[in-house]
C-alpha cells in the first residue's frame, strides 16, 4: 500500500496556491505545512523503499495521447535520495524564509511552492517530455523570486540573463527529446511515445543521431549545473537572489542536471556517452580547477559558495562519466552531500552577514567565534564536510568518484586529486575569514538565536547523520545506479580495448 506520487508532488503547490488567498501568517503556515507533508512522505519513502525492486510507486497514465506523452512518475534507487534531499531542503528553506519579512508574501510563498513541485516533478518524471516540461517549469518561479525580491538595482538584468542562459540549453534539450521520440517511432514503427519504458524497450538509436542529441542534452545540463565554461550566469544570478531562495536553487536545481545525465543521457545514448567520455571528463576537470581557483580568490561569500558548487559539480560529472558503478554511486552520494552542505553554508552566510551589518563580503566579517561558539561550531562542521574531511559523507562520495575515475582514466584521476586539495583551501579560507581573524568593522557578535537554530540545526544534523551512515544512500541506490551506466561503460571498455591507445575524443562542433 503506497501513496500515489502525485500527492507529495503537488501538495506544495496546492498549499502555496491556497496561501495566495490567505492573510500573511496563514500563508506561511500553510506553505510550511505543505512542504512538511511532502518531507514526511519522503522520510517514509526511504523506509518503504525496496532495494533492487526497480521502479516503485509508479503512476502511469496517458496525458496527451496525440503526442504520446505519459504522466508517468516513479521512484527508484536513482532518484529516491534526490527527492528526499529536495523535500528536506525545500522544507527547511521555506521555514527559513518564513522567519523573514517579505513584501507581497503571498506571492513569494506561492512561487516557492511552485518551485518545489517543479523540482520534485523533474526528479520523479518517468517520461522524457514530462521531464523536459518540469525541467523548464522549475526555473520559472525563480525568475519571479529573484526578480521581485532581489536587490533593486541589478535584479532584472541578472535574472533575465540567468533565465535565458538556462533556457537556451533547455530548448535545445526539447528539440533533442522530440527528435529522440520521432527517431524511435520510425525505428520501431510504433506511435510516438516519450515514456522511459518505451524508449528503453526500443533500444539505443543510431550512433550518428545519438551524438548530436547527446550534445543538446549535455548543453542543457552543463548550463544548469553550471559547469565551466557555461557558468556565465552564475555570479550575477547568485548575487541577485534572496538567500533562502539561493540556498534551494544552488542545493537542489543543479542536482537535477546531474540526475538528468544518469537518468537520461547515459542510459539512452550509451554510444555517444562513451564517445564523448573524454570530453566530459576534461570539462569536469576544468570545472573543478576553475571553480576551486575562483573560490579561493573571491571575497564575496556567496560567490565562494557559488564557485565551490561549480567545482563540486565537476566532481559529480567526473563520477558520472567514469561510466562505472563506483563513479556513478559516488556521484549520487556526492549530489546529496553537496546539497546538504551548500544549503547550511548559505544559512550561515546569511546569519554572519546579519551580524556584520548586512555585508556579505568576507573582509567585513570575522572574529565572532569566541562570542558565538555554537554558530562557529555548526559552521565548522559544514566547512569540514565541504572539504570532504575523512569521516564525512563527502569523503565517501569523493572517494568513490575518484575510485571510479581511477579505474577508467588514470591521468584524469590524478589531476582531479588536486581539486580535493583545493577544496580544503577554499573551505577553510571561508571558515577562517568569516568567523575567526580580527573582528570586522561593523560586526556585532551574537550567539545563534533559537529561531536561527531552528533552521540551521536540522541541516547540520542531516550532515552528521549521513556522515555516520552513508550506507543509507549507497546501499539502496546501488542496483539502479549501476545499471544506468552499465551499457555505456561496456561500450567505453570495448572501444578502449579495440584501440591500443585510448580513443581521442573528436570534440565536434555542436549542431
Amino acid at each position, binding site marked *: 500500500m503506497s501513496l500515489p506520487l502525485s500527492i507529495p508532488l503537488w501538495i506544495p503547490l496546492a498549499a502555496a496556491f491556497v496561501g495566495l488567498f490567505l492573510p500573511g501568517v496563514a500563508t506561511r503556515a500553510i506553505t510550511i505545512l505543505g512542504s512538511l507533508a511532502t518531507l514526511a512522505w519522503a522520510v517514509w519513502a526511504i523506509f518503504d523503499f525496496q532495494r533492487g525492486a526497480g521502479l516503485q510507486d509508479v503512476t502511469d497514465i496517458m496525458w*496527451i495521447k496525440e*503526442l504520446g506523452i505519459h504522466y508517468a512518475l516513479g521512484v527508484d534507487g536513482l532518484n529516491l535520495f534526490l527527492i528526499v534531499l529536495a523535500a528536506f531542503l525545500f522544507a527547511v528553506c521555506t521555514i527559513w524564509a518564513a522567519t523573514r519579512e517579505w513584501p507581497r508574501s503571498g506571492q513569494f510563498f506561492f512561487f516557492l511552492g511552485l518551485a518545489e513541485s517543479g523540482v520534485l516533478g523533474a526528479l520523479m518524471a518517468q517520461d522524457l517530455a514530462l521531464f*523536459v516540461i518540469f525541467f523548464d517549469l522549475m526555473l520559472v518561479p525563480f525568475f519571479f523570486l529573484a526578480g521581485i525580491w532581489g536587490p533593486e538595482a541589478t535584479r532584472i538584468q541578472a*535574472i533575465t540573463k540567468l533565465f*535565458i542562459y538556462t533556457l537556451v540549453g533547455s530548448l535545445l534539450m526539447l528539440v533533442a527529446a522530440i527528435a529522440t521520440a520521432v527517431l524511435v517511432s520510425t525505428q520501431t514503427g510504433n506511435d510516438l511515445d516519450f515514456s522511459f519504458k518505451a524508449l528503453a524497450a526500443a533500444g539505443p538509436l543510431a550512433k550518428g543521431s545519438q551524438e548530436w542529441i547527446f550534445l543538446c542534452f549535455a548543453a542543457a545540463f552543463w548550463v544548469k549545473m553550471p559547469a565551466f565554461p557555461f557558468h556565465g550566469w552564475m555570479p550575477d544570478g547568485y548575487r541577485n537572489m534572496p538567500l533562502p531562495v539561493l540556498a534551494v536553487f544552488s542545493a537542489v536545481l543543479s542536482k537535477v542536471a546531474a540526475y538528468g545525465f544518469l537518468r537520461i543521457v547515459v542510459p539512452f545514448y550509451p554510444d555517444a556517452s562513451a564517445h564523448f567520455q573524454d570530453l566530459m571528463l576534461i570539462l569536469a576537470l576544468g570545472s573543478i580547477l576553475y571553480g576551486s581557483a575562483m573560490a579561493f580568490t573571491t571575497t564575496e561569500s556567496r560567490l565562494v559558495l557559488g564557485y565551490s558548487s561549480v567545482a563540486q559539480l565537476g566532481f559529480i560529472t567526473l563520477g558520472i562519466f567514469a561510466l562505472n558503478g563506483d563513479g556513478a554511486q559516488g556521484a549520487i552520494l556526492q549530489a546529496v552531500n553537496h546539497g546538504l552542505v551548500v544549503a547550511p553554508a548559505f544559512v550561515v552566510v546569511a546569519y554572519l552577514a546579519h551580524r556584520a551589518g548586512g555585508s556579505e563580503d568576507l573582509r567585513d566579517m570575522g572574529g565572532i567565534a569566541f562570542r558565538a561558539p555554537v554558530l562557529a561550531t555548526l559552521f565548522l562542521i559544514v566547512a569540514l564536510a565541504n572539504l570532504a574531511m575523512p569521516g564525512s559523507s563527502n569523503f565517501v562520495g569523493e572517494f568513490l568518484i575518484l575510485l571510479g575515475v581511477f579505474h577508467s582514466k588514470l591521468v584524469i584521476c590524478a589531476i582531479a586529486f588536486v581539486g580535493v586539495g583545493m577544496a580544503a583551501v577554499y573551505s577553510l579560507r571561508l571558515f577562517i575569514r568569516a568567523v575567526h581573524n580580527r573582528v570586522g568593522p561593523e560586526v556585532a557578535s551574537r550567539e545563534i538565536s533559537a529561531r536561527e537554530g531552528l533552521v540551521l540545526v536540522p541541516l547540520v544534523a542531516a550532515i552528521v547523520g549521513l556522515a555516520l551512515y552513508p550506507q543509507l544512500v549507497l546501499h539502496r541506490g546501488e542496483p539502479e545506479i549501476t545499471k544506468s551506466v552499465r551499457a555505456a561503460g561496456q561500450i567505453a571498455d570495448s572501444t578502449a580495448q579495440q584501440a591500443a591507445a585510448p580513443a581521442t575524443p573528436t570534440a565536434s562542433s555542436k549542431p
Partner: protein
Amino acid sequence: MTHFAPMLAAITKPSIDWAGLSPIIALFGGSLVVLIAGLLRGRFIREQLVPFLALATFGAAIGLGVWQWNHATDLFVAKGSQGSMRLDDLTLMITFIVSVTGIAATLLSWRALAPREAAHGEYYAMMLWSAAGMVILAAAQNLVTLFLGLELLSIPLYVLCATEMRRERSLESGLKYLIIGSVGSATFLYGLALLYGASGNTDFQGIAQAVAGGAGNDVLLLTGIALAIVGLGFKASVAPFHQWTPDVYEGAPTPVTTFMAVATKAAAFGAALRLFDVALIDAHADWAPALATLATVTIVVGNVGALSQSSVKRLLAWSSVAQAGYLLAGVVVASATGVKATVFYLAVYLLMNVAAFAVVVARERETALGDDVRALAGIGATRPLLAWPMTLAMLSLAGIPATAGFIGKFQLIDAAADGGYTWLGIVIVIGSMISLAYYLRVVAVMWMRPAPSAEEVAGTGGAVAAPRLAGADPVAERGNWEVTLVAAVAGAAVLFFGVIPSPLLNLAADAGRAFGLL
C-alpha cells in the same frame, strides 16, 4: 441539338449545400442586420444592442459550425467542377478561430472610441464582413474564390484600421495597410493568374492533376507559386513582406489590431494550407525548401525586430511576425501532422494574443501612457487580474511549459522532425531563445518595476501619447470589466490548454485529416 448540351450544362445553376454554407450565411446575414440596426436611433440600440447582435452573429457562426462538424462537403458544385469552396473540419476550425477572435474583439470594442467615431453599425458590420471573407478564404478551393475571399477580408480591415478618424496614427495605419495590402493582393492575383496559365484550371483539384509528378522546370508554374507565396506572405506578415505590420498594428485601434492580428493570420494560413497541401502537393519538392527558408528568415527577423520595441503593440506585431515563421513550419512539411500542428498553434495563438491585447486595451484606458510598456509597470501588485493573463500570454508566446504555447511549439517541432526538417525545429527553438529577451522584459516590467507615478497614470483626457486632431471628444468614465474578463478568460485558457491540451488537439487532429494527407 445534342452538341449544345455541354454549353447548357455549363450554365446550369450549381448545386448549393445550404447547410454547409450556413456559417458563412450567418456571418453575412448578421452583418446586414447589424448594419441596419446601427441606423436606428437611440443610444441604447447603437451602443448596446448592436455589439450584442454582433456577438450573437459570431456565436451563431460557431454554433452552426459545430452542427456541421465532421460533415465535409463541397459547396457550390457546378457540373464538372469540384465546387468553389469546401466546408471541412479545417474550414470550420478557422471559422471557430475567426469567430472567437470576433467575439473578443467585439467585447474589447464595446466601450472603445473606435466604434463611436465610425458609427457603431458600420464598425461591427465591417468586422463581420471581414470575418466572412476570412472563412471564404480558408474554404476556397478555386483560385477565383480564393482571391474573392482575400479581398473581402482585406477591404473592411483597411477601413477598420482608420476608424479612430480623429487620431492621425489611425488614419496613417489605414492608408498604409491599404497601399501595402493592395500591392500584396495584386501580387497574389498575378500569381493566381500564372497558376491558371500553367495548369489551365482554376479548381484546386484540376491544378493538382496538372501539377502531378512535380513542377519540373515549368517556369510559369514556379513563378505562379512564388507570387502566390508572396501574396499570402503579405497577409500573414511573413518576412520580408512584413514591413507594414508594426506600423499598422500600432496605429490601428487596439480592438481592431486584435482582430486583424489573429483572424487574418488564421485565414491566411488556412488558405496556404489548402493551396499548398492540396493544389500544389505534388510540387512539394519545389516549394518546401523555399517556404522553409522563408520561415527561417521570418523567425529571425521577427524576433530580432521585437527586441528593441518599447510599444507593446509594436512588440506584439514583431512577435506575430516571428510566430508566422513558426507556423510556416507546419505548412512546409505537408503532412497531416503539419496541418494539425498549424491549426493547433493558430488556436493557441488566438488565446495568447487576445489575452495580451486585452491587457493593452485595459491599460490604454486606465493610464495616459497608451500602449507603452511603462503602462504595464507594477501591475503585478496593483492589478493581478491583468498581470496574470499578460504573464501567461508572454510565457506562452515564449513557449514555456505548462502553457498552451509550449504544446503548440512542441507539435510544430514534432511535425518538422517528422517531416525531415529537424533543422527547422532547431531554428524554431533558436527563435524562442531570442524571443525570451523581449517577452521576459514585459513580464519583468509588470512584476518587478514600481508602478508609474500618479501624474503619469492619471489624466485619460490629458497628455495622450499621440496627439489627437481637433474635435476629439474626451471619453470619460469608461468602465472595463469586459476587457478584464476577456483577458482573464484567455489567460486561463492558455493555462488550461497547456495542462489539458487533448480537447483542442482532437479538434486540430480532425482538421489535420481534412486533406487526406499521410
